[in-house]
């Protein structure tokens, strides 16, 4: 039986983090194929990097991962606000919106 084994190791080191994908293929003839794929994530540089390539910090908030803080009822349903009493402003012509 002819046995062919392939070991593929792909590792990329990016910055201080690293990620690696190891694919191990073991084939025994055409009729029997056994394939094992190991994906080893030692770390994920994209996830660990604190800045983008131009040095801009990544926000601590991550869409799909971060959970917004639960606010107490008095914050989510504040009492109605009493507007401050308005004075009579100086007279002036309205600025037409077309001038925007």
């Amino acid at each position, binding site marked *: 039986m002819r046995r062919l084994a392939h070991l593929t190791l792909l590792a990329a080191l990016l910055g201080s983090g690293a990620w690696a994908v190891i694919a191990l293929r073991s084939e025994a003839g055409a009729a029997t194929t056994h394939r094992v794929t190991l994906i080893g994530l030692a770390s994920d540089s994209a996830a660990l990097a604190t800045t983008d390539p*131009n040095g*801009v910090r990544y926000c601590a908030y*991550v869409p799909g991962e*971060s959970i917004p803080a639960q606010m107490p009822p008095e914050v989510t349903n504040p009492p109605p606000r009493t507007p401050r009493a308005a004075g009579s*402003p*100086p007279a002036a012509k*309205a*600025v037409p919106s077309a001038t925007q």
Partner: protein
Amino acid sequence: MNGHYAYPDFRGRDWAAIRTTYRAMVEDGLDGAGLAVAMQNMLDELGDEHSYYQSPQAVQAEEEIRQKGQNYTGIGVFLLPLPGARGAVISVFPGSPAMEAGLRPHDLLLEVDGGPIMEADGTNHVRGPAGSSFTLRIQRPGEEPRTLTLTRRAISGSTPIEYCLVRGTRIGYILVPTLADETIDDQVRTALQKMVAGGPLQGLVIDNRVDGGGSSSVAKPLLGFFTNGLQGRQVSRDGTTDFTIAREDIGNSQSVPLVVLAGPDTVSFGDITTGVLARSGRAIVAGAPTRGNAELLTRSDFSDASRAWIATFVFQPVGLAPGAWEGVGVLPSVSVPTRWDLFNEATDPALAKAVELLLQR
């Protein structure tokens, strides 16, 4: 006051009677501190919640900051005063003791050496002699309180903005802590330049929630990154002045979709910058109504080196009446809780909503 106060009806108050009352107090004899309190109380009676008095010492301190930037001994945090003599961190000075101790925006400062952070008269106990150490009780939103020991040292430079990119997107976030620091527009320009270096932004969150206002010399160039042209008028009893914005495009800043976060601590030029971006159609406002205190103040210098800043202009947004935002604020189109001390950057419900809105565009 009689000729230039923005409200000819003195907001229904009897200014002549107010003036007579306080004049009698002064003539009975007041020391410097007493005079400062009386002057502020007198202006407070007008109820505009904006006009204010500065003692000679306050004038000197402000002028030094204006000319030299921040220069004091402390730990290097820009604080939002909170009820209960506490404070919440708005931003942290680079290289400061606060940054070395790991303090971050939203951290709540509870106690200094077991006592209050601030006094009612404005005394800030976080400040003190260089080299002096103290215990600082802090609480990070969502965590238990803990105690740090910090040593004060000289702090100088500008009030820092905060900015970041939302991971996995091309959405930027910029916190505008104040418009009173003359470097803020420069800092925002630099932030935009760095953020667009990696490509155009797909959205930008401008956080005005703790923007207590400042100067038109900062607000106008900042607005110029995102909009341009006539955006309103400053209306006084003596006439009107156009509020025109000069365009400065940084990458795609003139067209990038914007969400402005705002709330009750968004005041004065904070009100105006938020309102202008909303009114011009450039931004969605998320949060809560702004303070609604958008008069423009004019300085009166007195012979003893004190000052009064008196509301002499109201802001008239394009297409709206003069003073349209006074008392009611700029209303958000999306309501989100804005309490600064109840979340951190990772758990900020308003930032989450803003990103959601921008990803939908």
